[in-house]
């Protein structure tokens, strides 16, 4: 697993565009095939949840959403849970199935 630079709260995350995703809900797993270079990643239910959340939202937005989802069932401090979410997201980025969304260049900033 390649180590990438640590995520920042403002980083927006999205799936790589060339992935083949095969949910297997009957065994609570999701297989993700990343073709270049070829690799299969097996996501457990938790990692799958994080993976699904990476649709352009920021790291802090995903943390907040997932922590809230688990609020009723987890007595640990929210900061501790958020830290785990961050680590999980970082893993997905390091596995190169999730990437930081590049900011769209604006016309005002563009040079010819």
């Amino acid at each position, binding site marked *: 697993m390649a180590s990438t630079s640590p995520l920042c709260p403002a980083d927006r995350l999205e799936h790589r565009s060339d992935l083949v995703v095969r949910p297997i809900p009957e065994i609570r797993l999701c297989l993700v095939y990343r073709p270049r270079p*070829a690799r299969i990643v097996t996501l457990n239910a938790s990692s799958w949840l994080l993976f699904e959340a990476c649709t352009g939202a920021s790291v802090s937005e995903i943390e907040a959403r997932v922590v809230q*989802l*688990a609020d009723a069932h987890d007595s640990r401090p929210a900061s501790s*849970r958020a830290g*785990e979410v961050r680590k999980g997201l970082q893993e997905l980025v390091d596995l190169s199935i999730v990437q930081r969304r590049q900011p769209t260049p604006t016309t005002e900033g563009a040079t010819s």
Partner: protein
Amino acid sequence: MHPAFTFAEASAAPPKYSNPGPLERPMKTTLVITEQCNLDCRLCYGRCKEAKPRPEMSIDQWRSVINDLAASGVMWLYIEGGEPFLKPGFVELLAENTPRMFTMVRTHGTLIDEALATTLKAIDVGVVLVDLWGATAQTHDALTRTPGSHERTLAGMRHLVDAGIDTQALFILNRHNVHELQAWFDLVGSLGTSAAGVLRLYPLGGVKAQWKELALSLEEMTAAIAGIKVPAGLRLMQSWHPRNANCCWQMSAVNAFGDSIGCAYLRDYVNFGNVLEQPFLQTWNHPLGQELRSGHVERSCSSCNSTQGSHGGCRSTAYAFHGRFSAPDPFDLELNDGVDLTTLPR
């Protein structure tokens, strides 16, 4: 690769499945792409040198079958032979499918030169598994009945590793190579392969008739596995107790003639129908296929269940020795029940 993160389980801790599935659709398929081979192996499960009553599927037919598999949910192909690289058009077929499917190719490596290895890397093949059955040419070439094959296989492995391909070595453990097992590990460790697999011998194809001469006892196999010192950087793959899986729950397979056979190791026992005549999913839903995937077995080894999440061990060897698909796998230490693995039942 399983990411270690387990956070959201706090919301509803999932039951630890002890019997995976049943899968609604297949995810992984073995393709026995050809039974043609340029070696003459004593360990051949495919009867490669025998005349065939039917023609093998053409590459165009395979193309249709793989499209059907993809539509059925398959995204992982394990391709073997015979020798896959003898099949005309195989590399092109592989290249067409690597963008949508993880691919593993099993070969004896004698046809892999620098150019082919470079191509395989360029098309993003996932893993190449190479059968090498001895540390010495004397042992390997006797098992392949092809002088020079050891040297050519080693050359192929070096080309694969040099090209940066994940290369794994396979060793079918038998009476004629068990004495070289450690030397073999040292050899493949020095080549730069990522993993080394020690496989059991299956009573299939041409091996059946030589079983008495080739097979080891369970005690001999267990001792050999226990004695392995795995070189640093090399991953050991082995499926003996306590890691004896019943893989049927996740497997499917199609042979060179289009027969849907569940698993390549079930090739002599099972035929769910021909995919040239019916959609693959129809064969997948064959009652025997469903039964094999269910994990309904007479006994289970708790150690293997805890490591593999499945029950009863390999269904092929269970059937070969007991004649029942639900029987215990006699290759499992806890399920052997005194079965002598050196003698096949009549």
